[in-house]
């Protein structure tokens, strides 16, 4: 009985752990192996070394996709954090109707990326949306052609993604702010700090764990952004707003080039690990201190 009591937590967690090891790590290794084979339409286990990686990096579309990932990821995380933080600080000022406003800001998170993408596609469409609206208002030369512009299409994805996720970041920061001890703020006020100084020097450092969680979640959403791109621009115009997830899907499943698709997935994984592992390490180390 004693043994069972001791082992119970481990037993309960065991199925999940096994599922994670097989489904996540096992399949990551399988994809890695697949990227070294000659697979075209379906997996074929004939090893060809790094041939698929060579093909991948010679592909101009992959270059565009990688570039877009850095632009999109960086802008999306930075703007969401800033916007979420500002909204949370403003909501924290003990205003009337705070519950209502908070719900309104959180609503975008509840809808799927496909709905967000489709709605924003209509809003940003030159002939149907914002541009037409402003022109009907009388601003004859107003132009908002980002959606169909090769250079600017990626920024439209940033707009839609930030709209969806800032509410969530705001909710996280709000919870964090509520957890800050009142006495600390009072102490800083006695010391003569202005509101701005109180926030910058006292409160924000306390919110470091919240920053960490927010960045983790936003980074994962950024990498995952396949459905948003499909709905908003379908990778277009041309392939100017393609992200690696879309590239991988197209090449693995539509183009019968599974080897190249697998190689792109492995590169995505390494890119993500290269950024997240040091960040994880530094945060967890400082927490243990």
């Amino acid at each position, binding site marked *: 009985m004693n043994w069972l009591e001791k082992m119970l937590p481990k037993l309960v967690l065991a199925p999940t752990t096994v599922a994670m090891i097989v489904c996540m790590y096992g399949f990551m290794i399988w994809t890695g192996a697949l990227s070294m084979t000659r697979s075209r339409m*379906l997996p074929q286990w004939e090893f060809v070394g790094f041939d698929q990686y060579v093909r991948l990096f010679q*592909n101009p579309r992959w270059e565009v996709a990688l570039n877009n990932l850095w632009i999109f990821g960086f802008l999306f995380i930075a703007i969401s954090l800033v916007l979420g933080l500002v909204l949370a600080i403003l909501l924290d000022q003990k205003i009337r109707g705070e519950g209502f406003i908070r719900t309104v800001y959180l609503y975008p998170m509840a809808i799927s990326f496909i709905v967000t993408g489709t709605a924003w*596609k209509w809003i940003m469409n030159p002939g149907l949306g914002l541009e037409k609206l402003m022109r009907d208002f009388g601003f004859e030369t107003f132009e908002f052609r980002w959606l169909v512009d090769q250079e600017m299409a990626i920024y439209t994805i940033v707009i839609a993604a930030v709209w969806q996720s800032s509410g969530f970041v705001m909710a996280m920061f709000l919870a964090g702010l509520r957890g800050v001890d009142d006495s600390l703020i009072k102490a800083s006020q006695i010391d003569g700090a202005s509101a701005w100084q109180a926030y910058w020097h006292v409160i924000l450092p306390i919110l470091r764990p919240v920053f960490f969680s927010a960045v983790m979640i936003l980074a994962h959403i950024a990498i995952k952004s396949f459905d948003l791109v499909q709905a908003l621009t379908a990778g*277009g115009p*041309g392939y100017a707003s393609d992200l690696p997830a879309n590239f991988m899907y197209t090449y693995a499943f539509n183009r019968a080039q599974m080897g190249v698709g697998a190689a792109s997935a492995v590169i995505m994984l390494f890119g993500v690990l290269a950024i997240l592992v040091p960040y994880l390490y530094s945060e967890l180390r400082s927490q243990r201190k």
Partner: protein
Amino acid sequence: MNTKSIVLTCASLLLCTGLARAADVEVLHWWTSGGEARSVDHLKKSLGAKGVGWKDFAVAGGGGENAMTVLKSRAVSGNPPTAAQIKGPSIQEWGDLGFLANIDAVAKSNRWDSLLPTVVSDVMKHEGKYVAAPVNVHRVNWLWANPAVFKKAGATIPTTWQDFMVQARKIQDAGMIALAHGGQAWQDATVFESIALGIGGSDYYRKAFVELDMKTLDSATTREVFRVFGEVRGLIDSNAPGRDWNVATSMVIKGEAGMQLMGDWAKGEFTAAGKTPGVDYVCVAAPGTSGSFTFNIDSFAFFNQGDAGAQKAQRAMAAEILSEDFQKVFNLNKGSIPARLGMARDEFDSCAHASMDAFLASAQTGGLVPSFAHGMAVSEAVSGAIYDTATNYLNSRQSVEDGVKQLVAAIKSAQ
């Protein structure tokens, strides 16, 4: 009523439903627009009349990319549909992987070899045995025009690419859109294909895009093709990216645009809108391609089924597809011409007659070429590479030289 009779009634009812669900065919396709949906409906009804149920499995996405993706996941999981809309070299790829069912028995008893032209039956066979049934023959190199728009602009229907640019500018000056176009990769590739055929001719086309000869691909002709393709950028409207092909056709129907470069499935849209050929719309060969016929053969390939009932239903479907009645009604609705030879022509309209004549004539002169934009000429990987190059070129300000370089490199890397 006492319990015993209730139980007996229920049991007999259940038995009846079990019997009624004899054999179903589950068919994967991507025919979801107006004219196309009607055509599929007809097959469903005629099979229903023969006691074969129809489980529709439509996956939208004009080029068929989404449907093919779904098919791969179903086939790999060991549960393929009874039939799927697969065409061209893909039939060979699926056959090589061992998924396709042999329907030679049906073919022999219905004398398919004598009913189909060789260029069609070759595509339907894997290692000499029939594995697919052809539904129609589409011609891709068509130009659809609205005569009212041309009259208003004082323009004439062009027959060469140089003339095309001139007439297009006239339409633009009259305040209308010159070329209705949907900014999707497969549509960009369709326009690119017609330009390549019109400028280079069928010999160049075959060498470059079917045999993939690198010297022909990296030639002055290809540079000219890209130059003309670049001029098309100025003829389409700014809302084109992402637009579906049938929405672009409706622009021509409504008189907002003058022309569309699209295969003859566009005719199905005109027919569904109640328009008459020669009066409300005009069909001509794409500029420079009047002696050539870019073919796209839609077909259903049959997958190995374990169940005997499913196999029987498959055979019924294969026989029905090549029957005179189905070939006639399907193609009347879809805008294409029958794959079956020797059918009566009187019910088909003038555009279909033109297509049938061109099909037979070009088979003699060597102008009959497979469409690479529609998966008939090369593998999915290579046609995908051409799609990427064409769509990137059309949507950017890339130079002719860079475009050609990208095309050559992409095709090389996709093989």
